[in-house]
């Protein structure tokens, strides 16, 4: 349908290959499955960061509630796995066997109606992809058609994340409350807690991430990508060039939501639980930091940002648990003030020219002095 090679320049292709080598070969070979599983967890956040690059970096839509969609995906998957783990044999000691344990503790005697369809894996996967998009569509229509944007949009999404967390914690019998949904065991009879399953999920996660990266690259390469930049700069001009700006914002917000939900589902599969602590205000803001550190205008940067910030978090928070939050906060402020385009920006600005200079210099030494003379004349 479209030419794969035309999507990327030579340099871009190299960057994708490098990321693929790191994720698919170097990391799995260099660490045990416990560590690799942690990396897989970090990479499940990369889906959210990727969505934020599109919505925030390019579209200028700062959503402080991406945890909502991560949560919808994560809970969807957890509900399916929990139902499978709650077979009548497994839960024979409960007063109502065959329903999830936390329901039984909360005196619920039959499976609630909205849990029913999650017994089917096909439905679950569809729900993970579609429900967040529908939810984002409703928020998007309500906000963007009324031209709510900027900081107001950020505050409203944050409020929704907060409301959702409170709702989940409050409805313990239906949602597992503050503990979330835990003790997940099998997927279609296949034990997800084994090392081999963890490898499979790691590679599945990586594969899906690359699919999402390619979708993003395709969108940014199309006229849609340029329109996003144009909208961020001069919304009125785009509107008076005959575009219905809100539709474009809604689309990109829905896509970011679906990406986040895929990440959430992969998180549940790899980590083995889902809880409200992953979808509220704080994790939603953490996702922004991953995206900002990696570079909000770079889809590959988002992946690196997730890896680096989370590695630092895991290592630092083990040794200095209280200090970590301050470190994270100052990291964010520092990046936004000094390097608004994050790591990707630093590489583009400093490292790539240095490499280019190095290569050019080599040429000078090999060929005559002509290039050097030329450069001195030009005053480079």
């Amino acid at each position: 349908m479209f030419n794969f090679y035309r999507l990327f320049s030579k340099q871009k292709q190299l960057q994708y290959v490098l990321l693929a080598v790191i994720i698919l070969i170097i990391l799995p070979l260099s660490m045990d499955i416990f560590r690799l599983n942690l990396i897989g967890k970090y990479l499940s956040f990369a889906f959210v960061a990727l969505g934020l690059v599109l919505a925030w970096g390019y579209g200028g839509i700062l959503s402080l509630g991406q945890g909502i969609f991560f949560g919808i995906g994560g809970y969807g998957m957890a509900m399916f796995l929990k139902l499978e783990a709650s077979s009548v044999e497994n839960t024979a000691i409960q007063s109502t066997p065959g329903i999830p344990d936390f329901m039984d503790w909360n005196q619920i005697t039959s499976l609630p109606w909205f849990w029913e369809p999650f017994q089917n894996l096909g439905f679950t996967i569809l729900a993970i992809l579609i429900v967040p998009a529908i939810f984002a569509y409703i928020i998007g229509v309500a906000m963007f058609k009324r031209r709510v944007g900027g900081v107001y949009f950020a505050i409203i999404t944050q409020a929704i994340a907060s409301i959702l967390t409170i709702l989940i914690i409050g409805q313990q019998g239906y949602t597992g409350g503050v503990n979330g949904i835990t003790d997940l065991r099998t997927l279609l009879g296949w034990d997800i807690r084994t090392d081999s399953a963890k490898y499979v999920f790691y590679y599945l996660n990586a594969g899906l991430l690359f699919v999402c990266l390619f979708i993003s690259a395709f969108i940014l390469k199309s006229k849609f990508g340029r329109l996003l930049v144009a909208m961020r700069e001069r919304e009125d001009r785009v509107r008076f060039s005959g575009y219905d700006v809100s539709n474009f914002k809604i689309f990109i917000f829905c896509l970011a939501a679906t990406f986040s939900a895929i990440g959430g589902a992969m998180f549940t599969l790899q980590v083995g639980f889902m809880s409200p602590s992953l979808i509220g205000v704080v994790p939603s803001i953490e996702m922004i930091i991953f995206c900002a550190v990696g570079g909000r205008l770079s889809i590959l940067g988002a992946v690196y940002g997730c890896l680096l910030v989370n590695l630092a978090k895991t290592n630092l928070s083990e040794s200095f648990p209280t200090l970590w939050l301050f470190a994270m906060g100052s990291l964010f402020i520092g990046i936004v003030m000094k390097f608004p385009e994050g790591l990707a920006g630093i590489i583009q600005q400093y490292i790539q020219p240095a490499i280019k200079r190095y290569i050019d210099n080599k040429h000078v030494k090999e060929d005559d002095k002509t290039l050097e003379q030329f450069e001195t004349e030009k005053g480079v």
Partner: protein
Amino acid sequence: MQQEKYVLSIEDLTVSFDGFKAVDNLSLYVLENNIHVIIGPNGAGKTTVLDLICGKTKSTSGSIDFKGEELTKLKEHQIVHRGVGRKFQNPSIYEDLSVFENLELSFPRGRTVWGALTFKCDKQVTSRIEEVADMIFLRELLHTPADVLSHGQKQWLEIGMLLIQDPDLLMLDEPVAGMSVSERQKTAELLQKITKNRSVLVIEHDMQFVEKIADRVTVMHQGKILSEGSIKKVKSDPKVIEVYLGH
């Protein structure tokens, strides 16, 4: 007068902001293939009239008829689709994109989400972009980032972004403000060239420029029309001299 056709008829248009009537019971008619200039002191409501036509501001009462269709009920992008183009007072272009991309985004195709995803910049688009770039004196600069253009070139680029849509009515808000003398000259030529098959509604303060381009002039004052007609008639109107031109 009746044998000439109006492309735009504004009747009894009023808009009030918290009781202040920025445009007060205004009626204005723009003829086909005409350059119509609105002049008047600051705060007369000139820009508000353009805002009302293009849908940026909603009117309190009155009607705006464009080629037999009522504009006051339409949304901004729908008004653009009907054939009304609007240039803003400060050059409003996409500075992170190149001149070519600025024009490409303004090309009237692929304006839906799906259309934008599948848009292909084919021969037809590039040749049209080059044609417009020629007109606005930016042919050599097609692949320059728009933010390095001079102020005058940015103004032309925005005019070009409207031209590429081939609108029937082009509205320009102070197109020569901040331009050098030679740029003004070129802009006047440009306007005369592009008005061949469309109407242009211009707001301008520079009387020399107005004299050069205007087919018809409307003088506004405090949201109302003070005087209307040829530039000669308006210039000799004692009311206009009193409030605007000075003695």
